[in-house]
């Protein structure tokens, strides 16, 4: 059993519960173990892209702690209290983003479509859910693909300083936008020619329960019809 194959709604409920817990227990002494356990769970589940997420989360922690400490000091808090409050805030954000990062990275659009279909949600809600959670990893992959295209065309984006790298990353915005439009067009075309109809309930080939079947078990003999 792979944790990736757990039903999307179960994962979503788990992420929500974790978020609520993080925002109820605001003290950093509760927040720290909760964040560490969440990150450990992500590592154990071998969530793809975890290293990249951790880099982003580290930046988030630094920015939040710095800006909150400065703000609280200006408001007259003691440095110790300011640091405690800022750290608690940063931990809450990391726990929340990590929980939803897990949901997003381990739920394929196909698995979300299946879970939503089995839950008999209206086709419009089904589509919105699978695109909302599915499109971000797709755009991230495209962002990386564009970076690879720049490298493959000879643009030096690795062996340069932080600010140059940042400038090149921002320059990927335009092709990413173009790619985003193309992707939306492909999805729309794919749905239209496969008969996706907002007024008709769809079915799914997958067995869906607590887990969502990841692949079709091929059982019968060879058929050539």
């Amino acid at each position: 059993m792979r944790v990736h194959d757990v039903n999307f709604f179960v994962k979503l409920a788990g992420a929500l519960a974790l978020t609520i817990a993080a925002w109820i227990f605001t003290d950093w002494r509760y927040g720290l173990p909760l964040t560490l356990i969440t990150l450990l769970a992500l590592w154990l589940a071998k969530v793809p892209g975890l290293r990249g997420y951790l880099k982003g989360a580290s930046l988030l922690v630094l920015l939040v702690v710095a800006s909150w400490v400065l703000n609280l000091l200006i408001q007259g808090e003691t440095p110790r209290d300011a640091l405690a409050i800022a750290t608690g805030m940063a931990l809450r954000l990391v726990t929340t983003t990590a929980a939803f990062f897990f949901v997003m990275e381990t739920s394929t659009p196909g698995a979300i479509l299946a879970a939503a279909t089995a839950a008999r949600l209206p086709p419009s809600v089904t589509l919105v859910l699978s695109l909302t959670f599915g499109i971000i990893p797709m755009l991230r992959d495209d962002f990386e693909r564009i970076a690879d295209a720049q490298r493959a065309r000879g643009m030096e984006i690795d062996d340069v300083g932080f600010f140059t790298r940042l400038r090149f990353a921002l320059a990927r915005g335009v092709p990413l936008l173009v790619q985003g439009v193309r992707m939306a067009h492909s999805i729309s075309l794919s749905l239209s020619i496969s008969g996706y109809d907002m007024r008709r309930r769809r079915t799914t080939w997958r067995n869906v329960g607590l887990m969502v079947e990841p692949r079709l078990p091929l059982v019968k003999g060879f058929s050539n019809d």
Partner: protein
Amino acid sequence: MLDINNVTVGFGGTPVLAEVSLLAREGRWMLVCGAAGSGKSTLMMTAAGVIPRLITAAPFSGAVSLSGKPLSGLSNDDLFTRVGIVMQNVEDQMWDLGVEDLIAMALENRGRPKAEIRERLETIIRQFRIERLAGRRVLSLSGGERRMVAIAAALAAEPEVLVLDEPTTGLDPEARQRLVSILSGLRGKVPMLLVSEQDPASVAEIADEVALLKKGGLTPPVPLPSVFEQAVPWLEAGILPPTRRASPQPSTTEAGGEVLAVRGLKTKLRRPDGTPVLSDASLTIRGGETVALVGRNGAGKTTLFQSILGLAKIEAGSISIGGDYADDWTPARRARSIAYLPQNMRRILFNMTVREEVMFAITAGKPEGKGDGPKADEALARYGLTDLAEANPFALSARQQAVLGLACAEAAGSLVAILDEPLLARDLNGRRLLEQFRDRAIAEGRAILLITHDLELADDIASRALLLDEGAIAYEGPTRALWTSGAYGKLGWPGPRAIVEGEGNYARP
């Protein structure tokens, strides 16, 4: 019957098809051939109702009807239940779904019972012999694998009309034979089949009639056997005739110094069974050579060039470029010596104008030098792109983008150009541009690595060939000796079509 009546279709005010008529009757499967850029894709999408229903065209006039009913009068659901289409660029109709999801999509969307869908899924996966792809995400598949899955998906709902736009593109010879055999088995089940191809021979077994597209117009359909062995009709349509004539021996210019060497390459990327995609790949390419790389779909050809460029991580092995040890070079530094041209050039274009793309190929993002502008203009002129210099590269047709790729690679003067399944290979004008590119590369001591499933193309233009199989280079030697080698025999593929002796090369019109 599918009746395309006096249809004119264009984009941005420029007609691509002019007053085209075509009648596809039940039981008579139709092939449409034409050069790249002749309007085949536009015709296929119009026949399937995608144009103007989902893609707006201007101008658009004329009518398309199915069994007497205009397509414009059918609901989306009715239209796409009755007509299935696989586009030339299959990525245009795919997104990040699983293989089973994509194949089952049309059935799921129509609310068919789960048991029926699973039964149909299993049947079609076995029929297409794509069991090993089950459970994978379509965007992680190789180009040929994606195409097979897209065709399987189009067939899953058993349409009345199946429209396939260049279905054999990117398929290895075995997959091509398998596809033709599957389609042959559908006679009686799919009443109407409309296929477009640049290479008529690849689908000759299943096509009853052929119509040729040239300059936006369509010739009346004729039985395929009646023109198959003639040269003139195909040449007039701007494509290479299906019956091969002797072509000049691939250049035997004495190879120069080593420009690319790969030793014992083992990738970190692994197959679902845990084996590395490349386990021990070694090859050498010398200046002035054109080397063909062939291998099964999914053999690791893409991973090989990605590893050479440093875009895929390697576990062991070494790479040298231009005689220098390049293992610690960044991908960008490698790419300044190795130009990569994928079949779908959109993947590597990111500048705002055609001229900027060529300039970027020369400068690699650094400030423009004094002679760079004229050099870019010269490359654009040589490939007939001067009038498009200020156009957005994404607004070009796939064919124009492929030509732009050649212009970029030539302007960059890279030591090695990797051409991945070039779209231009089968039409006369494209072949001329490709040969021009090769000849200049050879003259300047540069090399070309041609990744292709088109055995005739490899046989015609590559002096040496590499065969990638089971994670290693299983053959490295003269191209014409490849076809009789043991490594090639193991693939079970037919060789390139035999050359008709004594008739010389084709005259270019």
